[in-house]
């Protein structure tokens, strides 16, 4: 049973339509990758799912509840956590404050919030050392950890990650992917947008390839990794090449 069901999703900016009817599903306990070249519409898809862009057509359903027209902060409350592109930390705030804001919706349960924050520090020990440091002064990898930890405080049902590997050293990317795999194994649904096709297909269970606002190919990650069409489409240009 899929947690997230997207059917015929259409999104646009001004007069230009960017997504021309996207279908995709994500089930608990699986990592679904959304691949495609720059400008294909990956980020727009994620922003539409989390309510940051208005949906022009089609439907988005999370755990049986329609997300169409639901405001972004309500969608977060429904269990969708979105780690945006370029991390978007509150850089003049401390690491601790960033995590506390991640738990904004459970702010009335002080003890529970504190417990969950400690869980995050256990998951990312480097952040525990930097609790009181301003988020903007962290290294890129540490910032990504804050961004993910901040999204996990609410224990979401669906974790949406937008290019978590951007600008990071391979070793750090591997450790972040390791954590994503662990979350999947614990039963979380993960939707992952990446540039890094091959490595992403290695950790994903299924994948969709987006081109110019439409889904071009989808299937099991293991199959797509060997599919020459994916190479062509992901790297851009004519799919037939």
């Amino acid at each position: 049973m899929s947690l997230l069901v997207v059917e015929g999703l259409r999104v646009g900016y001004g007069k230009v339509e960017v997504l021309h009817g996207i279908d995709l599903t994500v089930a608990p306990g699986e990592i679904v990758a959304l691949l495609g070249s720059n400008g294909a519409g990956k980020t727009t898809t994620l922003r539409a799912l989390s309510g940051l862009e208005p949906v022009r057509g089609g439907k988005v359903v999370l755990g049986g509840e329609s997300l169409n027209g639901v405001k972004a902060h309500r969608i977060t409350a429904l269990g969708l956590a979105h780690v945006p592109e370029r991390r978007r930390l509150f850089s003049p705030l401390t690491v601790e404050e960033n995590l506390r804001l991640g738990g904004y919706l459970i702010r009335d349960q002080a003890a529970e919030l504190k417990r969950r924050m400690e869980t995050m520090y256990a998951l990312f020990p480097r952040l525990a050392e930097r609790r009181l440091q301003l988020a903007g002064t962290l290294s890129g990898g540490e910032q990504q950890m804050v961004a993910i930890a901040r999204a996990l405080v609410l224990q979401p049902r669906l974790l949406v990650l937008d290019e978590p590997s951007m600008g990071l050293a391979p070793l750090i990317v591997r450790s972040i992917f390791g954590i994503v795999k662990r979350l999947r194994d614990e039963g979380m649904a993960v939707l992952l947008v990446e540039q890094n096709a091959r490595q992403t297909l290695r950790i994903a269970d299924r994948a969709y390839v987006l081109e110019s606002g439409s889904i071009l190919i989808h299937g099991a990650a293991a199959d797509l990794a060997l599919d020459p069409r994916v190479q062509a489409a992901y790297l851009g240009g004519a799919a037939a090449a």
Partner: protein
Amino acid sequence: MSEFLQLLVAGLTTGSFYALIALGYTMVYGIVRLINFAHGDIFMVGAFLGWTVLSALAAMHMPWGIALLLAVLLAMALTGGIGVVIERFAYQPLLSAPRLSILITALGVSLALENGVLLIYGPGFETYPHLVSTAGFVIGGAQISYVQIGIIFCSLALMAALYLFVHRTFMGTAMRALAVDRDAARLMGIDVERVIQTTFFVGSALAAVAGVMEGLYYTEINFFMGFIVGLRAFTAAVLGGIGNIPGAMAGGLIIGLLEAFSAGYVSSRWTDVIVFAVLIGTLVIKPTGLFGERVVERM
């Protein structure tokens, strides 16, 4: 020396008003990037609401301490509510429209508040009841009243409370987060609309306190008093770096001192010229104000 001390205390007193009002400008700007031109008139409305309550309570022979406390609290609540209503109906629909449209709307709100008060209270001065004595003490040759000391301490206490609110509460942290990145704040589950309304409420309530203090200090209030005070407070907010809360506090006190010393040592006729010259000079040297941070535009 005695003159200096006298001017210092006077400057800190008026600076306290400016700082409290500047906080409203700066908090609103930090969160919705709007220069709320009606904020000076919010201060004026606060002074009138405080006057209404205080006059009523004084007529009932209530002990002045309780009357004053009630007047301040009621003025804060009512003025804060007016601020929220203005945001909801006049600004919110225009937050994504061209910037100038919302600026004109703010000017319209300013005009509406002034003329609304004019219609209700009339064009003359209203006199605050003499609840607080004019007594004081002499120190170093300077005559300092208890009212001045009270105003300075109350303002500092309010500023400290605001600092704690912004840094220690969830709502305050959400405000700072919103100022940095609105979309990211939404993703945290923060109800952006509510935070914006809270900001307007807090800013307006602080202006109301300043309004009541002004009434107590100068004893007379008028429907156009918001213009010049609002202008000075706005200047203070920009001087400190608009959007920056400690900057607004410091800016307010600096403007108050500048005003007092220029009136004392030059002439009050030139106060505004000096204040604006300092502002423009500061901005030329430091374009984002004394405490402001450089905003880097990403391309």
